[in-house]
């Protein structure tokens, strides 16, 4: 059987894009429109309005007095803000580092399991599904100094009462620990998906060349897992800077502000007497700028490494 090639010049001309194709080209936008409308109304518009409100003073949400950049200068000259910013940075760095390292370790361990893989995956993911408010309350009971189950357990090993929630240092440790416990299952799942996408023949080849498990991890797993790690680092950074709800029920930001993070500072200005919507909005804008810059830096670094 032979195939007859028709010269390009003698092919019938392609049908020009007419009105009929407009419908097809518009379809994706029409499908996106309802979602974008909701996103625009409830995310984009409030965000733009937040920028705007940060240049006004208001205590009731109805009467606004223009104050220019005064809200920003007030915040930046407020000693409490800098204490809160320091807490937030400490929390976010520790949270991102521990979550990422622990997430990788859990993902690798679960990936290597021959049996009960689904069981372990579910167990580590369950905390993600629990309401942060409940997480804060339950851990609050467990970490209570005199009757908490954690200190009772430690007492069996001769360790005295640890002031988990009422000492400045220990309360930050507790908050970081609970935050990691709550989110690490989610990061583990992303990293597990990344691990499963790595070609197993690479490991076979490495084993045939006599590579040790550590060399395999270091030379194959980590480099090929990098896109997933970048996603986890970006998400963990955002989660770290936005943490609030479980901390509010766990320590209330105490003792004496030792675990108050930036979102609680915004919440207290925006919703507790004396209400200061302008200050709260300015705090929200500053948080947005910081998270945005960190995300951009992460993205640039990952692009550079991909190029290499």
């Amino acid at each position: 059987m032979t195939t007859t090639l028709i010269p390009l010049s003698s092919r019938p001309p392609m049908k020009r894009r007419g009105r009929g194709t407009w419908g097809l080209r518009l379809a994706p936008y029409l499908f996106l429109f309802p979602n974008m409308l909701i996103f625009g109304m409830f995310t984009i518009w409030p965000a733009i309005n937040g920028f705007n409100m940060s240049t006004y003073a208001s205590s009731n949400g109805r009467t606004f007095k223009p104050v220019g950049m005064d809200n920003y200068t007030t915040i930046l000259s407020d000693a409490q803000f800098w204490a809160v910013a320091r807490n937030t940075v400490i929390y976010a760095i520790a949270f991102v580092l521990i979550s990422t390292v622990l997430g990788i370790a859990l993902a690798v361990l679960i990936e290597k399991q021959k049996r009960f893989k689904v069981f372990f995956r579910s167990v580590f993911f369950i905390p993600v599904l629990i309401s942060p408010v409940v997480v804060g309350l339950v851990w609050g009971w467990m970490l209570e100094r005199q009757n908490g189950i954690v200190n009772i357990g430690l007492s069996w090993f001769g360790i005295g009462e640890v002031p988990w929630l009422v000492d400045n240092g220990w309360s930050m440790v507790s908050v970081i620990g609970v935050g990691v416990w709550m989110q690490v299952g989610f990061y583990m799942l992303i990293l597990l998906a990344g691990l499963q996408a790595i070609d197993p023949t690479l490991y076979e080849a490495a084993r045939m060349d006599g590579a040790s498990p550590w060399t395999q991890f270091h030379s194959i797993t980590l480099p090929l897992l990098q896109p997933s790690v970048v996603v986890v680092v970006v998400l963990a950074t955002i989660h770290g800077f936005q943490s609030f709800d479980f901390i509010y029920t766990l320590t209330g930001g105490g003792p004496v502000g030792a675990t108050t993070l930036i979102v609680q500072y915004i919440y207290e200005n925006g919703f507790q007497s004396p209400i200061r919507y302008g200050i709260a909005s300015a705090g929200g804008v500053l948080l947005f700028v910081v998270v945005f810059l960190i995300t951009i830096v992460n993205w640039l670094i990952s692009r550079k490494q991909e190029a290499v």
Partner: protein
Amino acid sequence: MARLRTRLLSLVAGLGSVALLATACAPGQTTGDAPKPGESVDPASFAGQTLNYVYFTDGPDEKGTRDLIGQFEQKYDVKVNLEILAFSDLVKSVQARLTGGNAPDVVRLSSLSEFRDDLLPLDPYTGADFKNEFLPGPLSAVTNDQGEMIAVPSDLTMNAPFINVDLFNKAGVPLPDENKPWTWDEMMAAAKQVKDATGVPYAFAMDKSGHRLSTILSEYGTTLVGPAGNTLDTAAAEAALGPIVQMMKDDQMPRDFWLGSGTKYKGANEIFLAGDTPIYLSGNWQVGQFSQNAQFNWAAAPNPCAKECGGFPGGKFMAAFKESKNPALAAEFVKFMNSAESQTTFVTAAGSLPTRVDLNESGVKYADAKTQAAMDVFAAELGRTPQADFATNGHPAFSGSATELVNQVSAVVAGNTDLHSAMAALSTKIDGLVAETKH
């Protein structure tokens, strides 16, 4: 393709411009006009109308309120929509409704601070004499700068200590005399004596609250704020709070309880109900649950005296909004709900104190003898409480100042600062908060 991209870009740019133009404007609007004096308050004209009442409940008061609403609906042939919100959401929710032009007609509030400029002056509707039906102290908290009544003090609370009578009896320590209150030193000595004799964990407990701390400040002759602004006498405050801080440092008071909840309010009622302390400083709103849940004999006691005697007042308010679609009906409802008969129904159901002069003179009959005995103690404290405390509690800067008081005391208890520096810092903060309320 290029044309489509150009059009889409134009569309996005256009929408962006509209957004920017919109956001360049002030995000709010001015509030509605004040009602015209002499608007109709003819009850017959209300027939068939609807009223929205936004309410929060402390529990037992809800039934009393529903009963009274039923009577009002029947009497005026109107419909009242009772909307019960969680207390923690009340201010946010009502502010959002005001912003959206959907103001409720009437609201129950625990503080007027957030809505003072939005509340309807009631005098044109209720008559100027209506205000004389209420005690001068609570009335001062609901009177604006023009001397108009902008809310009605619907019920009154009073802070005072509760004592675990069984623990006192077990320790052989005499109970306080209702007519001759303890001094602070006597009360502390008695509390420690009972603790040592009975082995309970604490000698004294109090709610983590700037309002409760204000009781002690008042007894030592100072307040946080008043009509003149910052009224804090830092030396008096140091004298008042020094023993409290020391008791927490010595574990005579639950220190973890105070430090473990940040800036949030926390009630120590569970510590008292567990029988872990002989004395608990709180207020009359605890009477109902203690009557039901306490497994021991308890009693309310008069507040200890220092420079002054008495407790610190609080309470709830009923107010109508200027933006109400029917201000006359709203004012009539507020008046009805606070008549002598209605307030009797409400305060007996809620376990609170009346704000009306006539009811304070005649007294109110509560559900049972135990409740009656406790409420009589709280009512007697009303007479001992300095009148200036009512103005303090109603001051727009009180709530913020009270939160700051808790923060400063917590910092001292945690060892982050000393009491002298903390009170100086508190005074500076109060100056700022008072200035903020004047803008």
